[in-house]
């Protein structure tokens, strides 16, 4: 298995982290990963991450749920066995549609919410017995960690990161997953 060296710069303040990210980006280094104990507002923008498309998937799932509910109620109540239940008009879907709206609404929300959550789990590779990936346990409590891979530029990188206010800089041998 191939190994490579990465640098772990640890910060204790999110404002310092933000300015460090901007500095590192300005110096045209690629930031591999940042670990934080809580969401840092604006960090994704500073890192230049692409916006999420989760909302778009949710819209699609909701539309699927709506179509499914219409198909379901139409098949059961209108096509398969159109009984007269309390005088409600079961001649066509449209005539009886107000009674189906609560189901249409709930299934739309159900599909949109649950499928989006599952999409989120899949995309971010989260599941119950997944091995945690903390490079440093303190990043779940009160430390921020920036990971940058080293390509024969260890000294300049260490100097740069020290200037940005890192409280600790570690060089780590990392097994590459791929």
């Amino acid at each position: 298995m191939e190994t490579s060296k990465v640098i772990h710069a640890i910060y204790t303040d999110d404002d310092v982290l933000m300015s460090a990210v901007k500095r590192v980006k300005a110096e045209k280094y690629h930031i591999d990963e940042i670990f934080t104990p809580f969401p840092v507002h604006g960090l994704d923008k500073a890192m230049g991450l692409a916006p999420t498309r989760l909302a778009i998937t949710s819209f699609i799932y909701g539309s699927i749920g709506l179509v499914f509910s219409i198909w379901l109620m139409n098949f059961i109540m209108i096509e398969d066995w159109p009984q007269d239940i309390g005088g409600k008009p079961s001649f066509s879907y449209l005539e009886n549609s107000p009674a189906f709206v609560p189901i249409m609404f709930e299934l739309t929300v159900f599909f949109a919410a649950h499928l989006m959550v599952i999409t989120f789990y899949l995309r971010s590779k989260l599941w119950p017995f997944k091995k945690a990936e903390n490079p440093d346990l303190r990043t779940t409590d009160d430390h921020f960690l920036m990971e940058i891979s080293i390509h024969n530029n260890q000294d300049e990188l260490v100097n740069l990161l020290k200037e940005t206010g890192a409280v600790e800089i570690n060089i780590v041998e990392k097994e590459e997953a791929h």
Partner: protein
Amino acid sequence: MYTFSNKLKTFSVALIILGLIGVVYGFMTSHKSFEDVETMLAAEASHGGHAVEASDDLATTSDMTMDSASEGITVASHVNEHKEHVEHVQHQIANRPWSAIYVAAFFFFMIALGVLAFYAVQFASQAGWSPVLFRVMEGISAYVLPGGLIVLAIAVGSGIIGDYNLFIWMDPEVVANDKIIQNKESWLNIPWFAIRGLIFIAGWSLYAYFARKFSIAQDNADINDNRNFKKSFRIAAGFLVFYIYTESIMSWDWIMSVDPHWFSTLFGWYLFSGMFVSGITVIALVSIYLRSRGFLNFVNDSHIHDLAKFMFGMSIFWTYLWFSQFMLIWYSNIPEEVTYFVTRFQDYQLPFLGMVVLNFVFPLLLLMNSDYKRMSWFVVMTGVIVLAGHYIDIFVMIMPATVGDRWFIGIPEISAVLLFAGLFMLVIFTALTKAPLLAKGNPFIKESEHFHY
């Protein structure tokens, strides 16, 4: 300071004049004689317009001429029926210009009242994003007093100088033969109706007056002196309590009592959601207009985004209440309640269902995307659709009770909208010139100026 451009002033005056001409024309052409209506119905019958009813009339008139002796009694009852039918249609035609100005007057008044309620909510919740828009809201709510008085004057006037053209419970002859209305007479009588209306308008405009006064006093006060802001906060909370009671009662009085045989418990909320969403839409439209003229440079895309989110959310809230009211009545189908929707479905199918598309489907699809909510032209486009939809909403509340199937959106309706649109613009833009457009004394103003979403 905002200066009311001459162009816009001329435009709104032109709207008023144009609207006034059309409204006068509507009143002049609505007094049809009995014979006129009779020949009109006969002509409609031959064109197949109102085939069923009117062909009956034709049959009765020809019956009359052919054999009068043999079936004297039946003919007499036929004649009576025919006379009643023609008089009914005659009254509906006479009601049309009254209803047209009432719908338009109420629509613009409701926008101002919705803005006032939104303004009070912003104070009571100590919102940090909206203070830059406070002067715009104060300007729009300046229309509450004149607008409210006009609506009340039309309502009471239709009973005093008119021929009971809006509210049949004002007609003593109708009440004398109607047990149901007689039982409601202690509430539905003209003096008590007028006094209630005046109390509501007084309460709303007092809040509008003092909120504005404290807001301007806060501008001129010392930087550490927040007494006026605290007063605004307290009266906003008090006003909201007063508002939710009076708005509900106002909806029974001014809208629901056009159908005095019908009642619905969530009607007040339903009307509230409509006025809230149209009010927010007008705040967005006026802010975008003023910003495009360079008067609101401290308003950024995030403020527009927030207003658009409110438009989106409140449109859905309106639909929720519209559907809840409709579905509960449709589902149980109790004859005494369901007639309300039966007449709307039979005679008003396009506006009744079309407004759901305008007020729900369009805002839902157009304003769902976060990026679109930041684009001014997109918000303006959706806003125009939403306002048109809520005009039709009020139209469908009033018209079936007054003009029935004799409705049309023609000269009387359009000119009434033009008249009140002109008046509305004149009042709100004049009010906007009276104070600086930035409420600089508000303790949240810095946060609001830097608001970013």
